[in-house]
């Protein structure tokens, strides 16, 4: 169950992105920024620190995304950070992505892999997930070295874990 606050922000940002430009581009850029934000503790503390003035936090966002991302993407991220919701940014982005995909009648599948998938692998995986779930799936690939090898797919609350990390965890549990 998505937090109503997060869902509200996601709907608002989707409306802004739709009005300012291509929601799919904004969705992709936001998704990638969220991945970076999740992995970077310094960035989290900088943008989430309430003692840092909002203008300073917005300036950090401008410096990071200016020239690299769509102006609409920069605007919505800056708005969330200025509102003091930086800690909720990953959840808001996830809800945004689902909202955006739903607008295209698609379901987002977050795929974590230790290495980038080739286009062929991404297509075959999309087809496989479409067949497995019976939905029109849109794959979002996240390179996560902690997976070690293999793939972990999250579709909503469902997780299909085929990672080496899981196998090692199972091995560890069998020792326990």
């Amino acid at each position: 169950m998505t937090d109503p606050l997060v869902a509200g922000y996601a709907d608002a940002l989707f409306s802004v992105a739709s009005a300012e430009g291509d929601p799919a581009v904004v969705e992709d850029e936001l998704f990638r920024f969220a991945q970076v934000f999740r992995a970077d503790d310094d960035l989290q503390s900088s943008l989430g620190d309430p003692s840092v003035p909002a203008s300073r936090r917005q300036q950090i966002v401008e410096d990071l995304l200016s020239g690299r991302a769509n102006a609409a993407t920069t605007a919505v991220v800056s708005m969330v950070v200025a509102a003091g919701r930086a800690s909720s940014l990953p959840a808001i982005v996830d809800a945004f992505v689902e909202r955006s995909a739903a607008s295209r009648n698609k379901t987002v599948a977050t795929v974590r892999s230790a290495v980038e998938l080739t286009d062929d692998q991404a297509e075959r995986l999309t087809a496989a997930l479409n067949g497995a779930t019976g939905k029109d799936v849109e794959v979002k690939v996240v390179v996560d070295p902690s997976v070690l090898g293999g793939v972990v797919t999250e579709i909503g609350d469902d997780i299909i874990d085929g990672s080496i990390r899981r196998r090692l965890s199972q091995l560890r549990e069998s020792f326990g």
Partner: protein
Amino acid sequence: MTHRRTHLLAAPLVAALGLVALAGPAGASGESIGGCIAHHLEEMIEHSHGDTDRVVHELHEESTQEDLEACLEAPNPILPELNEIIWGGAAFLILLVVMVKKGFPAVKGAMDARAERIQADLDAAETAKSDAQAIQADYEARLADAKGEAARLFEEARTTADQLKVDLTSRAEADVVEMRERATADIEASRQQAIADLRAEVAGIALGAAERVVQSSLDEDAQRRLIDQYIDEVSGHDD
């Protein structure tokens, strides 16, 4: 009761009055010694016509002396004079009648009352005796009960003490057994924990080594094969 006492007092009073009333006529009859002498003196005075010398002279005569001595002779010691018998008998009869009519009933009533009172006292004494016997029996019964109760309490206390002794002994034995079991369990738990810790430590070391081996062995081809294998497995869900 007061009426009866009045009768008892009246009877001797009537008798005394009778004696006093009858004493006068009896004394005045002249049958007594004084009366006899007085009678002779009166006759001498009457015969002498007031001549005192003649009276004195006659007094010294032998016939007069004999008459006077005859007066002095004692009457019959057994049979009283007739008038005394009459007066005495009448007084006796009167007194007898009075006593029969008044005295005897009063005395009988007093005797009856006394008998009743004595009987009542006897009854009361009997009742008191019965009560005392009942109280004594009750006391004896209570004493017996108290003795029985004391014996029962003593027996109960002894039984309780014995039971307590048994309980304490069994409890102490149970505590010893429990402590022994607990100590054994603690030792076993510690042993199991040590084994688990050791196993976890060994597993951590082995898994760390395995992880490093896997990371070093997962080149691009291996990663690709793993992803392809995963895709095939996901595709297999549809089968």
